[in-house]
């Protein structure tokens, strides 16, 4: 078999086979199993004790036409012995299963990085589909990188020959061959992967054996091929992390578990009303399986029915939850107004994606902040929280439940497609360390006079929560403006003023019941503060860390509570000379901060459907500090 090795890379990159961290990207056809391969590789990193962060990046089409650039599915994992906060700016290693995968991904590769390509897929047809006239392996166009090109397809066919699979099925084992080679490169234990394959194909032992043979063959290839140079083993030490029990978890899983934990801490059953939508569906899938935890999941006929059913469940005394993405949240808008008007608890999860309209269903963006804070008819305030990483989702989901039931208000929880699908190691907490916040339903029948369903706690302004079925407290609620405590229809001018003020004050007052804004790095009163929210946490943190290491006076503030904002935030931001706000939108938090605090917040915007690179934020920090004024 032909083995081509071009080892003429530029020497711009650190070349060590004992790096702190390595970024590997697997890229192939959407049917090539790259997400699976990446996921299993990540697991092997976890088991090797590395810290890691992943970035699955796949097309909206389930099986786009084979070999096309728009059908390329990629999975990037950054793993290392140091603190890993992002999936990495630039891959060190790119595994390209076909020309289209090479074409769409190689530009991201670090100069000097390693490309492993399957020449078995580099026939004229696939080259043409990817838009190559000449094979890039042969025309020196990959000279900036090291290229290891060999016929993985043929090697796989050879390895699985004994199992008598058809050609198509046999080629499906390519991803395991590649995984085997990757495991060798990073000196990983194959045993857990073999066990996983045996379990996955328990009903079809031949397929299990074939895949294991491919995995072993890929591993053996690394060991015996003696290509030298580029193909060599790297050692990545375990990260020194807090001792404890860890698991890998995606944002979608973490958020679902947090909702269940929150409901339990509140002493409520959980009702999820949801409609399938990318990238929010993992929450529906996860909660649908947890019936023993008092979870009822309801796949509604549409987004509106999903939120309305959740409101109905909250009205009846459960914790109503609905989960969607931007377009679905838009459809829910009127019902959110109803939940605000009827002052019922409701948790609304928005796994944001690129917009507007259908936008980029599988790509990440954080452009629904305006929608979350302002996106309803009338003066309709609700609580807005955001999650900054897959593991953070757990605690934020609990917090969303707490605020919702303690203040009788809908809470919007903003996560995004990147967080939903990305995985991180999670130091699993002990639920005994969480303080419960049991809900007390109102049951007391007034000794005289009518029961007033809008009677309020004088401090928090929250109204009472009465479950239908409670004797003596029958009452009516609805979307029409109501009398201050009676809840009866009331169109009077002064009453509407009072009710609008009350709904607003109730939400703003929650600022007294949330933590003050902390500073992630640095201290108040410096030259520059970088303010973020959501999944930009990783790149901002790393960029600020790096800038501070260079001696720059820069701090990082990351906002979890987006509405109401923490009480001290205004003073904190004003203590800095400059405020820089990186966001994956056109400047939404920047506008909110300017509006709320009259601070001269400067935007740094990116809406490419891809997360920020650390370097992009570092460059902006440098530019902002250099800017006069």
């Amino acid at each position, binding site marked *: 078999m032909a083995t081509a090795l071009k080892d003429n890379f530029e020497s711009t990159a650190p070349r060590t086979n004992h790096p702190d961290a390595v970024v590997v990207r697997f890229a192939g056809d959407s049917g090539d199993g790259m997400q699976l391969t990446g996921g299993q590789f990540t697991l092997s990193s976890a088991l090797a004790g590395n810290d890691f962060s992943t970035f699955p990046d796949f097309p909206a089409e389930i099986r786009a036409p084979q070999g096309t650039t728009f059908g390329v599915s990629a999975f990037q994992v950054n793993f290392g012995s140091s603190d890993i906060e992002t999936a990495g700016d630039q891959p060190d290693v790119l595994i390209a299963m076909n020309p289209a995968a090479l074409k769409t991904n190689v530009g991201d590769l670090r100069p000097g990085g390693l490309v492993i390509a399957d020449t078995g897929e580099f026939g004229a047809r696939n080259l043409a589909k990817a838009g190559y006239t000449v094979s890039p392996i042969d025309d020196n166009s990959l000279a900036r990188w090291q290229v290891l090109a060999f016929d993985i397809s043929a090697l796989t066919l050879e390895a699985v020959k004994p199992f008598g699979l058809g050609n198509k099925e046999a080629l499906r084992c390519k991803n395991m061959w590649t995984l085997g080679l990757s495991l060798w490169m990073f000196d990983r234990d194959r045993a857990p992967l073999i066990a996983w394959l045996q379990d996955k194909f328990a009903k079809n032992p031949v397929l299990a054996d074939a895949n294991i043979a491919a995995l072993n063959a890929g591993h053996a290839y690394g060991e015996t091929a003696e290509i030298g140079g580029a193909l060599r083993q790297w050692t990545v030490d375990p990260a020194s992390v807090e001792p404890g029990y860890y698991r890998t978890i995606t944002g979608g899983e973490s958020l679902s578990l947090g909702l269940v934990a929150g409901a339990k801490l509140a002493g409520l*059953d959980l009702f999820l009303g949801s409609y399938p939508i990318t990238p929010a569906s993992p929450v529906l899938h996860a909660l649908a399986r947890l019936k023993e935890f008092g979870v009822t999941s309801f796949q509604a006929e549409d987004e509106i029915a999903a939120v309305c*059913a959740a409101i109905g469940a909250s009205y009846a005394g459960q914790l109503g939850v609905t989960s969607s993405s931007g377009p679905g949240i838009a459809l829910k808008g009127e019902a959110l107004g109803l939940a605000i008007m009827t002052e019922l608890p409701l948790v609304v999860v928005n796994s944001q994606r690129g917009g507007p309209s259908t936008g980029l269903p599988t790509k990440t963006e954080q452009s629904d902040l305006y929608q979350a804070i302002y996106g309803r008819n009338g003066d309709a305030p609700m609580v807005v929280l955001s999650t900054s990483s897959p593991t953070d989702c757990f605690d934020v989901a609990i917090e969303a439940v707490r605020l919702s039931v303690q203040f009788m208000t809908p809470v919007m929880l903003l996560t995004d497609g990147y967080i939903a699908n990305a995985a991180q190691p999670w130091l699993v907490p002990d639920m005994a360390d969480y303080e419960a916040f049991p809900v007390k339903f109102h049951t007391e029948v007034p000794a005289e006079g009518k029961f007033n369903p809008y009677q309020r706690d004088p401090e928090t302004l929250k109204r009472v929560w009465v479950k*239908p079925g409670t004797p003596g407290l029958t009452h009516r609620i609805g979307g029409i403006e109501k009398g201050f405590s009676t809840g009866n229809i009331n169109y009077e001018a002064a009453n509407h003023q009072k009710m609008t003020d009350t709904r607003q004050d109730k939400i703003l007052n929650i600022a007294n019941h949330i933590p003050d804004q902390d500073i992630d790095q640095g201290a108040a009163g410096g030259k520059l503060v970088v303010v973020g929210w959501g999944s930009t946490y990783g790149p901002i943190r790393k960029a600020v860390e790096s800038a501070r290491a260079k001696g720059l006076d820069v701090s990082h503030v990351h906002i979890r509570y987006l509405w109401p904002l923490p009480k001290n935030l205004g003073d904190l931001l004003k203590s800095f000379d400059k405020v820089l706000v990186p966001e994956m939108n056109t400047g939404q938090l920047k506008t909110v901060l300017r509006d709320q605090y009259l601070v001269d917040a400067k935007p740094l915007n990116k809406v490419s459907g891809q997360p920020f690179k650390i370097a992009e934020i570092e460059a902006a920090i440098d530019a902002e500090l250099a800017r006069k004024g």
Partner: protein
Amino acid sequence: MNDMTAITIPDGSKPDHWATDQEVRWCPGCGDYAILKAVQRTMPEIGTKPENTVFVSGIGCSSRFPYYMETYGFHTIHGRAPAIATGVKLANPALDVWIITGDGDGLSIGGNHMLHLLRRNLDVQVLLFNNEIYGLTKGQASPTSRIGTRSPSTPFGSVDQPVNPCAFALGAGARFIARGIDTAQKQLPEIFKAAHAHKGASFVEIFQNCIVYNEDVFAAFTDKKNAGPKQIWVKHGEPLVFDNGTKGLRLVPGQLALEVIDIVDGDISGVLVHDQTNRGLVQMLLELPFGDFPMVLGVIYQDPKPSFEAQVTAQNHSVAAGKKADLNALIRKGQSWTVHDAATHKM
């Protein structure tokens, strides 16, 4: 300290236990008053309690209904009452849930929810007040308005084909379908009782006279003089006769079609006997063209199947059976490893 007055909670045994202190705000003479009265008369006979009863409505004249019922009530948003009611009933199946809606609310903006509520067979009663017009928005044509209806939004007459609510319900998979008239105070409580007794979604269309925007649109069969020849009240197991027993419905010999025949000397041979479980017959009755045929009224279809919330609850219980709800164990599932002090690792 004075003696505390004992708190008495109305037990729902009298119609006035079901009336609120709120001033009813429908137009004087509106058919809704009659329906409200019929419902308040029915509730004591059902034997349920006000606190276990929930009225859910959407938006429109009819949807003000819950404010006048001394029960739990939720006046929601336009078209969404079926969706809200689904959450209420799934969260607490013990509640007796009634949905009040209209032709615009239930069949236009909320048509999709109605379809799915009926096919899922949620155990609720749906009372759809059909007046063939949008009343609360001042008189536009509705999805049940007949072709040629002149209204502010259709000044030259509507051109779109109206929907037949009961035929829609049958197509959607409803297992209980009935028709009534707002003023039919004798029959309405009987229909409501049957709807309540039915396990699963009960769909009741009530012809309701909007005296302001569509007065007398149903007069061709609701006027006293027309009641005999133009109304046929069907009953399971009884012959399909009307007009004081002088007319009946039978199959046209050799065809799958109905015809009206005169009954002479009480000879009802050939007249069809109503079978409320016969979907084919029901379909024909629901779609009989009015004019040549009378309006078919009463409980027309009833063929129960297990209700949605009963099946959801059963599955929740069976899947959860034998499993321990251990949250700490749950969050520890999946691919895991332990980091010891010396930073060594194992699965």
